[in-house]
């Protein structure tokens, strides 16, 4: 075998809808596989929050955009002899195709390892793909690839409606949709052409079963299918938006193996080496099928398949790309059997997508052929009922499972609509339909979901009713057999409590009842058992640490850990506000605990993570992060301690209840955590410590509100307690908005009161991430937002170290932080957010847990805050480090948010107090401008070629944009402006060209210019701070997004960006590895 010496790996960049944490998993595995071979690895990935960009994984990391320009520059500099392009999602693949077509690999003698680029092109170009499959008699949907609107319409005529339109070369089905007539086709095609030059018009297979296989092939033509998966939702809903089960449940042996054989034949014909995914449509009433697509790379599905089976797909794919044969590689789970085998599952896996559409104003709530979900969960059980109910709870949307949720009264028209027009809530609508007396046939007619799945759901429904009916004696009347049966069907203790005892009191009733059920259940000996996932259904002994719990069993597969151990709670489902950054924290906590001599146990259920890899911890429980399940595991394992401060808000929210149950929580006392989480308590304590904060009041009535507003004046910020990523938080500028908002806010949180506080405009926002030991801060990092306060910290662009903060301010922040750490007796991680205006500092909030910015500041500063925090949590004596060096760093890091508005039709793409970004990057530069420009390019912005549109919003931001506009003019850009801005600029001597507002219906109109791509960058500042203005400004912003034009909605960020690209050109951006920065 001729192994390369130095290999470049392309990452996938920031997390975005359609491309999320799964590529941190696949890239990390590939890097480990190469490292094992003694190969030097170079990684390009600007996503600083990932595990793969941590120390000691790749030999060198470049925090640079994964674009042809930067990748070529790195190749030029590093001269690698091989490149892996299949581990960084569509981003890496598209970049590789461009480089291949540009002859770059040839020019520098870089060998593409694994699947040849030509095979990738064969799968990506619809026409070629169809031809290739035709050659071997494999069916694809009847379709026509077109490049013009005329051809698209002609194709529609020929194929007949309904029709699906897809864009070629697009991630997660971007630019796809269904059309029922010519008009819909025209609209859809127009949009698709903005994302791709080629689109596909094809027969609709709506209602067919959707089935996928993960196929692995080595260069000796050995081929296996590692896993198959069946979508609960039939064709018509993107697989990323579907509930998916593995393995398939409703396919006969003939169907299963027919599709398997076709998959192998197809993959051999395409010449793929490594891993790929093949998707089918299967006729529900015959064995007819169509191949939908082949993804010639690691994908979301392959990450899922890998976690679902225990087969390390990415690791094996990386080894195969070096020239190994499958039979030469070992099954790393069993350590004895070969990697050439197909896992046999003795459990069922259910994946469910998590949406956050509620966070977006104006967004279309329907789901379909394009992805909108931001995360997913994977639940394991021995029955579909058990797994789906676990999964529905894992989504963390407040649901207790399929049944026993808060009652809803919905009329049948609405139910019909919820069932027939797929949406986030559809599965719960099935329960509503059962309650309303619908038959399985009726539900099937409306949803086309296979009867088998509906039968299982109806079993859950029936069992729920059985619990509820005629049980006068409540818990005492519950017979063991029924209790066991409902637990087997995935009922939580809380669901049982609700069905048996009702909803409970307003405050903590349900939770108290849950404890009664738990106690009764344990007394009756109805306990879950721990089973292993071993890839071969117990046929051979396996040394697997991959575990789940089930009520379908009488025996635990293993004994509790006997060495001293620590449990780390993972971050759970990725959603807006909590994603890969908390996985990094969890993984680092586990690694530190292992270094400190502990056996490590992880509980997490997110298949897109590195923390759920088989080789990260000593034991992995792929389980719910609920009070019930965490206690089950703690009862079984009896660890020395449990860490819940590194997984974000989900584990943090368990603190109080776990403490009440005497769980050995490490670090800050849960009572203190509650005093920080509860806004009322927090504010009182700040008053007590004499720390300033924006004036606030708890909302009890509208009159009290109005009085408070009269005192502090509009705008005011309103938010409920226990806030995560600003959910339901908003700024209101007048009475009308206030009343409108309160109606929805009260719905969001009935258990906790709503707090209103003054909103300070034009204030700087500064964050402090720190570690304290018994109330003494031992390490900290301070970062500064580019935007003024008012943009959620998760959406803000951040400098580390701070660039425009006085030393005096830093000193004051530190003193405040020390006071807080002491008062709360913090041991472990903390994060405090500050406002600074005119030298006055106010505290906005304090989180006694690791925060989103931990990986960013840890990596840029070189002080791993999680490592230190974990050492503190484990009781190790740590030294106070030299965090004071904060200004001495010879380079700058900039963290920038990634938005996914393109994937959310209708959503208003604007920054506000509520977080809407889906990911982030962090880049390094010698100067703040260089780091900022690299980050902005990493999240998809481009340096404008010729023209910029400025629509300056309120006077305050118009003023702020004067100097940047002048700079643009000086650099030779054409500045377009809408009326007010145009006039203001003219008054201030800046020449701009007037464009009319969308509703002025007059040319030259902004919308026309955007659609004709005459504008390279849009700066549109909203006129007020509220959500809900779906007006002219909205139209400009949305059109910019829909037509792929860069958009900035914050004046401070726009100014920083303009200054950066006016002072630096692409060639000025230094191609420096992380190690080179560290050595400065």
């Amino acid at each position, binding site marked *: 075998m001729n192994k390369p010496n130095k290999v470049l790996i392309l990452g996938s960049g920031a997390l975005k809808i359609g491309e999320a944490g799964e590529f941190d998993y696949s890239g990390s595995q590939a890097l480990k596989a190469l490292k094992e071979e003694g190969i030097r690895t170079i990684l390009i990935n600007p996503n600083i929050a990932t595990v793969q960009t941590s120390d000691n994984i790749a030999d060198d990391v470049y925090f640079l955009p994964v674009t042809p320009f930067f990748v070529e520059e790195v190749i030029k500099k590093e001269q690698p002899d091989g490149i892996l392009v299949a581990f960084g999602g569509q981003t890496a693949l598209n970049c590789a195709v461009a480089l291949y077509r540009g002859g770059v690999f040839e020019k520098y003698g870089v060998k593409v390892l694994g699947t040849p680029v030509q095979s990738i092109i064969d799968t990506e170009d619809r026409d070629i793909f169809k031809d290739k499959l035709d050659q071997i008699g494999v069916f694809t949907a009847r379709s026509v690839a077109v490049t013009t609107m005329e051809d698209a319409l002609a194709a529609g005529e020929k194929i007949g409606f309904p029709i699906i339109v897809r864009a070629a070369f697009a991630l997660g089905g971007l630019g796809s949709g269904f059309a029922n007539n010519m008009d819909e086709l025209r609209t859809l095609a127009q949009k698709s052409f903005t994302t791709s030059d080629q689109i596909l018009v094809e027969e609709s297979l709506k209602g067919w079963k959707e089935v996928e296989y993960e196929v692995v092939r080595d260069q*000796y033509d050995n081929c296996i299918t590692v896993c198959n998966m069946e979508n609960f939702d039939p064709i018509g809903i993107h697989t990323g938006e579907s509930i998916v089960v593995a393995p398939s449940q409703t396919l*006969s042996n003939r169907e299963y193996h027919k599709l398997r054989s076709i998959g192998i034949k197809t993959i051999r014909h395409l010449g793929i080496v490594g891993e790929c995914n093949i998707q089918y449509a299967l006729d529900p009433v015959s064995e007819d099928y169509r191949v939908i697509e082949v993804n010639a790379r690691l994908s979301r599905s392959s990450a899922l398949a890998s976690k679902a089976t225990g087969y390390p797909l990415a690791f094996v794919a990386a080894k195969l790309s070096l020239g190994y044969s499958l039979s030469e590689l070992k099954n790393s789970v069993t350590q004895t059997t*070969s990697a050439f085998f197909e896992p046999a599952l003795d459990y069922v896996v259910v994946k469910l997508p998590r949406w956050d559409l509620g966070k977006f104003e104006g967004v279309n709530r329907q789901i379909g052929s394009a992805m909108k979900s931001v995360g997913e969960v994977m639940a394991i059980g021995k029955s579909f009922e058990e797994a789906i109910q676990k999964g529905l709870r894992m989504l963390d949307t407040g649901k207790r499972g399929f049944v026993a949720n808060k009652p809803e009264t919905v009329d049948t028209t609405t139910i019909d609509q919820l069932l027939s027009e797929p949406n986030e809530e559809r599965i719960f609508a099935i329960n509503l339909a059962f309650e309303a007396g619908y038959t399985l046939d009726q539900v099937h007619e409306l949803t086309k979901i296979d009867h088998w799945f509906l039968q299982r759901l109806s079993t859950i429904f029936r069992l729920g009713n059985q619990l509820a009916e005629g049980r006068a004696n409540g818990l005492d009347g519950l017979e063991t057999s029924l209790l066991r049966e409902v637990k087997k069907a995935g009922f939580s203790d809380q669901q049982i409590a609700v069905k048996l005892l009702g909803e409970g009191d307003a405050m903590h009733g349900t939770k108290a009842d849950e404890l009664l059920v738990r106690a009764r259940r344990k007394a009756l000996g109805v306990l879950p058992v721990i089973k292993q996932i071993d890839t071969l259904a117990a*046929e051979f002994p396996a040394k697997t640490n991959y575990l789940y719990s089930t009520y379908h069993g009488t025996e635990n597969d293993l004994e509790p850990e006997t060495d001293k151990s620590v449990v780390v709670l993972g971050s759970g489902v990725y959603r807006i506000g909590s994603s890969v950054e908390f996985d990094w924290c969890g993984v680092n906590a586990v690694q530190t605990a292992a270094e400190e001599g502990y056996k490590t146990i992880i509980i997490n259920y997110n298949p897109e993570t590195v923390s759920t890899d088989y080789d990260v911890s000593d034991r992995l429980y792929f389980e719910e992060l609920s009070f019930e399940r965490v206690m089950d595991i703690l009862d079984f394992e009896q660890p020395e301690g449990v860490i819940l401060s590194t997984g974000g808000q989900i584990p943090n929210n368990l603190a109080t209840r776990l403490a009440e149950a005497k769980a050995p929580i490490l670090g800050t006392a849960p009572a203190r955590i509650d005093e920080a989480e509860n806004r009322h308590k927090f504010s009182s304590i700040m008053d007590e410590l004499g720390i300033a904060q924006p004036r606030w009041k708890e909302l009890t009535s509208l009159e009290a509100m109005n009085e408070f507003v009269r005192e502090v004046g509009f705008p005011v910020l309103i938010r409920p307690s226990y806030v995560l990523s600003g959910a339901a938080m908003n700024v209101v500028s007048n009475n009308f908005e206030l009343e409108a908002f309160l109606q929805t806010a009260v719905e969001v949180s009935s258990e906790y009161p709503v707090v209103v506080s003054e909103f300070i405009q034009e204030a700087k926002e500064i964050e402090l991430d720190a570690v304290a030991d018994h109330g003494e801060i031992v390490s900290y990092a301070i970062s500064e937002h580019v935007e003024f306060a008012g943009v959620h910290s998760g959406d803000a662009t951040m400098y580390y170290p701070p660039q425009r903060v006085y030393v005096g301010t830093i000193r004051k922040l530190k003193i405040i932080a020390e006071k807080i750490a002491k008062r709360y007796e913090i041991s472990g991680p903390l994060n405090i957010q500050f406002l600074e205006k005119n030298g006055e500092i106010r505290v906005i909030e304090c989180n006694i847990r690791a925060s989103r910015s931990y990986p960013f500041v840890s990596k840029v500063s070189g002080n791993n805050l999680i490592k230190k925090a974990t050492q503190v949590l484990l009781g190790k004596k740590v030294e106070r480090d030299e965090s004071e060096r904060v200004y001495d760093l010879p380079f700058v890091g900039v963290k920038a948010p990634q938005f996914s508005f393109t994937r959310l039709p209708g959503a208003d793409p604007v920054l506000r107090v509520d977080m809407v970004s889906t990911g982030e990057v962090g880049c390094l530069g010698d100067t703040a401008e260089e780091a900022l420009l690299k980050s902005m390019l990493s999240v998809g912005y481009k340096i404008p070629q010729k023209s910029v549109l400025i629509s300056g919003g309120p006077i305050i931001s118009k003023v702020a944009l004067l100097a940047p506009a002048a700079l643009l003019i000086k650099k030779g850009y054409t500045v377009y402006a809408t009326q007010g801005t145009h006039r203001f600029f003219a008054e201030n001597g800046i020449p701009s060209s007037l464009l009319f507002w969308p509703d002025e219906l007059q040319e030259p109109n902004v919308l026309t210019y955007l659609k004709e791509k005459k504008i390279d960058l849009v700066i549109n500042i909203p006129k007020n701070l509220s959500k809900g203005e779906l007006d002219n400004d909205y139209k400009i912003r949305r059109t910019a997004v829909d037509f792929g034009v860069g958009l900035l909605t914050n004046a401070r960020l726009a100014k920083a960006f303009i200054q950066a690209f006016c002072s630096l050109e692409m060639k000025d951006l230094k191609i420096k590895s992380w190690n080179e920065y560290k050595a400065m």
Partner: protein
Amino acid sequence: MENTKQVKLILEDGTEIEGTSFGAFTSVAGEVVFSTAMTGYPENLTDPSFAGQILVLTYPMVGNYGVPGEELYESISKIFESDKIHIAGLVVNYYSEEHSHWNAAKSLGDWLAEYNIPGIFGVDTRMLTKKLREKGAMLGKIVAGEDIELHDPNQDNLVAQVSQPEVQHYGSGQHKIVLVDCGTKTNIIRCFLERDVELIRVPWDYDFTKIDYDGLFLSNGPGDPKMCEATIGHLQTALQQDKPIFGICLGNQLMSLAAGADTFKLKYGHRSHNQPVLLTGTKRSFITSQNHGFAVDTATLPAEWTMLFENLNDGTCEGIKHKTKPFFSTQFHPEAAGGPEDTEYLFDDFLTAVADYKNR
């Protein structure tokens, strides 16, 4: 669940497991074995190689797609692997009482009841599988009401029970193949009939050396191969000639015994759809469907024979071939049904050998 009846699974080591009855409510004894196949219960349950066995399925949800109605292909079943259920009993974790599939005619439970076969669900099949893995396949019984004695089916001549007593003819292709029926799966017949073959199916103890044929095929079948003395005797005569011979599963063991090698009982056998085999001496591997409790002892292979395939998990013999003559056999099932179809090409290889023999 209403109207459920409890039954017990009792193993020879004294283990007693309670579960719920489905299928026939009747007691049965047999050898308890497990299969890790995730699909294909209609195929598996009708596979004659399972005769006398109480089958434990490790896949947790069974019965999901019901059981298809009977259809005929030539004169054989189009869908099932024989004309009846051959297992003695079925043990599962979760029985899907309601099923869903376009070609389902009945539920698994009704089908079992039709053939008076008991099923038991609600069993921790993983626990049971681990026990069988550690202690080896065990005798056992499903007890529904009335208790019965344990019984070792390997003491019976199971092949004699499942082999069809009459000679039967299928197809009219150009190659005349004799199929020695030791309990053949019908998909073997289908695989031949799709390939220009005239098939003569003869009973296991039929003296096929007396009839005219172009190639000889030895089928799969249940139990200890050493029970098939008559077949081995006839086969020894055939091995003296040069006509191509191909064997599957029990056929592989019979070929080995006739050649002078020995067979032994595996601790718990191979019953699954994911057995990896390597074409000996190459880097070519295949995923295969398997169902056997006995294996060929490679060390005892005579000098003129060699290993054709080996198991990538445990190194056991997965096939043998004669070094000079067109004789070969596989321990796995190239005809699949159920399971992967990767090695169906072996039927073509055999018929190529037959054609070569005829043309020489």
